[in-house]
């Protein structure tokens, strides 16, 4: 990315679709973030709609992962990160004094790029989040685990081997297991950071179908650098570049009729 493009872009105002506060689960308000003084996000403001799939796209290094991790406070672990602005979950500031961070992360679940099941059985992986909470009757726990695995479209493949090591699954199955594990704690928002980029095309399509089915139950934020994927699964798309929000619109509008030249440049492949 050349200097001139960047400076020209920085001056322009972003084109952002206005989601009504009542229809949104998350509101990001003037969020900026620095890693040891190095700016990674600059003054982002947008609302995420409830029960929809919102995609974040943009060139690699533009801050997509950084933004996702700001939404469930994973940056808390990193002393080098300084942050300003607010993130509101259902109207409540996630950095507010009364917020327990573990509780917040249960409400805002996250799935990472590389599948990362724990070195335990398939069953125990899905039960992990449940066991952190008040103890459940085994019957009830089994029900939730089955439900989560069904929701992640994995049940039929693993129902006879629930007590095998999770590391015996294929990469695509592992990623769906990780999604099931997150679903089991019943989050309101699901953050997916390039969930299919480490997978083969067929596994990738399975995950996409799964994402489409999930939005009836929760709100999904999907980070991807694959524009076809964003176009196939998301309802809204935000385009980020250099730590800034460039354009945020309904997916169909953004891909067929981008309002800004920068967006158009990127999606027509001139910059990617």
């Amino acid at each position, binding site marked *: 990315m050349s200097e001139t493009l960047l400076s020209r872009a920085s001056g322009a105002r972003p084109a952002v679709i206005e989601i009504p506060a009542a229809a949104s689960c998350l509101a990001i308000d003037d969020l900026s973030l620095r890693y040891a003084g190095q700016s990674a996000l600059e003054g982002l403001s947008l609302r995420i709609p409830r029960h929809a799939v919102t995609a974040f796209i943009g060139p690699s290094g533009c801050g997509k992962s950084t933004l996702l991790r700001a939404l*469930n406070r*994973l940056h808390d*672990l990193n002393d080098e990160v300084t942050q300003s602005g607010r993130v509101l979950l259902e109207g409540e500031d996630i950095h507010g004094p009364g917020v327990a961070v*573990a*509780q917040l*992360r*249960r409400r805002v*679940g*996250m799935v*990472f790029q*590389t599948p*990362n099941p*724990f*070195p*335990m059985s398939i069953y125990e992986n899905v039960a*992990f*989040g449940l*066991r*952190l*909470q008040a103890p459940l009757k085994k019957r009830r726990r089994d029900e939730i685990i089955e439900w989560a695995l069904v929701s992640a479209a994995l049940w039929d493949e693993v129902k006879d081997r629930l007590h095998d*090591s999770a*590391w*015996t699954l294929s*990469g695509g199955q592992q990623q769906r297991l*990780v999604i099931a*594990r*997150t679903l089991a*704690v019943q989050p309101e928002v699901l953050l997916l950071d390039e969930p299919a980029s480490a997978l083969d095309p067929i596994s990738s399509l399975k995950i996409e179908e799964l994402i489409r089915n999930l939005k009836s139950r929760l709100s999904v934020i999907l980070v991807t650098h694959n524009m076809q994927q964003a176009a196939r699964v998301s309802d809204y798309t935000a385009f980020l570049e250099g730590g800034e929000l460039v354009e945020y619109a309904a997916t169909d509008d953004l891909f067929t009729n981008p309002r800004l030249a920068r967006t158009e440049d990127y999606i027509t492949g001139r910059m990617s």
Partner: protein
Amino acid sequence: MRRWRVASRAGLPRGEGPWPWLAAGSLALSLLMLAALLLLLAGRGLGHFWPAPVELVTLDDGRQLAGQRVREERRQTLQGSPLRERLYRTGNRDLEGDAWRWVPVASIATHEHPADWAVIERQRWGELIVRPLALEENGRRLTEAPLWESFTARLARVQALRVERDALRRQVIAPLARHLAAGHEDAEAQARLAEARARVGELQAAMARDALVVESAAGERLSVPLEEMVAAWRPNAMSPLQKLAAWGANLWHFLSEGPRAANTAGGVWPAIFGTVLMVLLMSVLVTPFGVLAAVYLHEVAPQGRLTGWVRIAVRNLAGVPSIVYGVFGLGVFVYGIGGRLDEWFFADSLPSPTFGTGGLLWASLTLALLTLPVVIVATEEGLARIPAQQREAALALGATRAEMLRRVVLPMALPAMLTGVILAIARAAGEVAPLMLVGVAKLAPQVPLDGDFPYLHLERKFMHLGYHVFDVGFHSGDVEAALPLVYATALLLVGVILVLNLTAILLRHHLRMRHARLRSR
């Protein structure tokens, strides 16, 4: 990369100069040295238990001696002429004053291997090498034939009686005596005690019934009560299979019995037990401390210059000579803590110390301290190897830092912790120097674990194989008798360490298998 692989499969890579050969050579040399060491220990140590033949030697001047060949040495006479001398183990210490005889080879006229000569091991005075002549019962000469068969049958009877007597003493008399000594007025117990003592008297009388009349090579005769014998065999009359069986039995006695004759005979069981118990106790003490310290250092403490310094200090602690830890243990554990404990809890037995002297607990603690750095370093390395993804996955599911540690990080670091314990065992099991200051004993036939409350006697002194080697080798009056035991005990020490390490390694392997069946996806 590929080329290298092909080359290594075909043998040593060509065209890379002398380095591969040098490296392979040093590896071969180390392996060779290890093999030589083990072979030496095994040959000298295990050979000792083989029933060697008895030679009846007639010297030029007509004198005779009977004994087992040990070795030959070349010497010089005072005039400077060369002289070859042969060492015989002749036994009969009480008859001849010494159990060993150097004989100039040139002065041996004939030697033979008569089948009827026997080696008799006794409770005291060591072995007899003699010719059995007749049996006596209550001092009356018997004419039973064949002599040897009837003798071994009677010896077996005496040994059965001894087993019964010892069991009675241990299981009936000792508990009753303790019961009464504790101040209980119990007429029934008194009666049972008197009855048991009477029975022991009867058994002892029965054991004293028989004796064997024997003759030494010097022509001296004596009557040896069967009661005093431990074992008897006729090496020249034994088939190789019988010798093998005897070898196995001797080895078993060595492993399972306590020492006799100032550690120059008998077995090393208390030392094996002491070594293993001390190492296990050390592992139990060092593991939680080491793991907690490593977890604090790696997971909890803010990573700054101070933690860096602490880390360097811990690593350097591993290089402090072990005797320094012994001095520390003596000053802090034995005199400091032990002395204080005695003042508070065992004041009635002062001035004789209970915990204020070396003992199992202090020795284990000292070695735990010695091996602490090893466990800390290994655990920390294990913690550092756990991928950040696994930690974030746990946090993202709503785990607190403590829950993440307990449920994900620590289980995954378990093999690394076991590696630490394995290294700790390897270091601790062979340490002798610090133990001499904090609790090892030359002779402690009572092992620190028994049926008496509180079962594990942490204040007791204990025996240790490493110290036993040192003691038998350097502090025993009979060097020739001690030498094979030194080799055998050293071999045993190596074996015990190997077994302890293997156990830990198998445990780690088992854990790894359970967790990481598919790490290389």
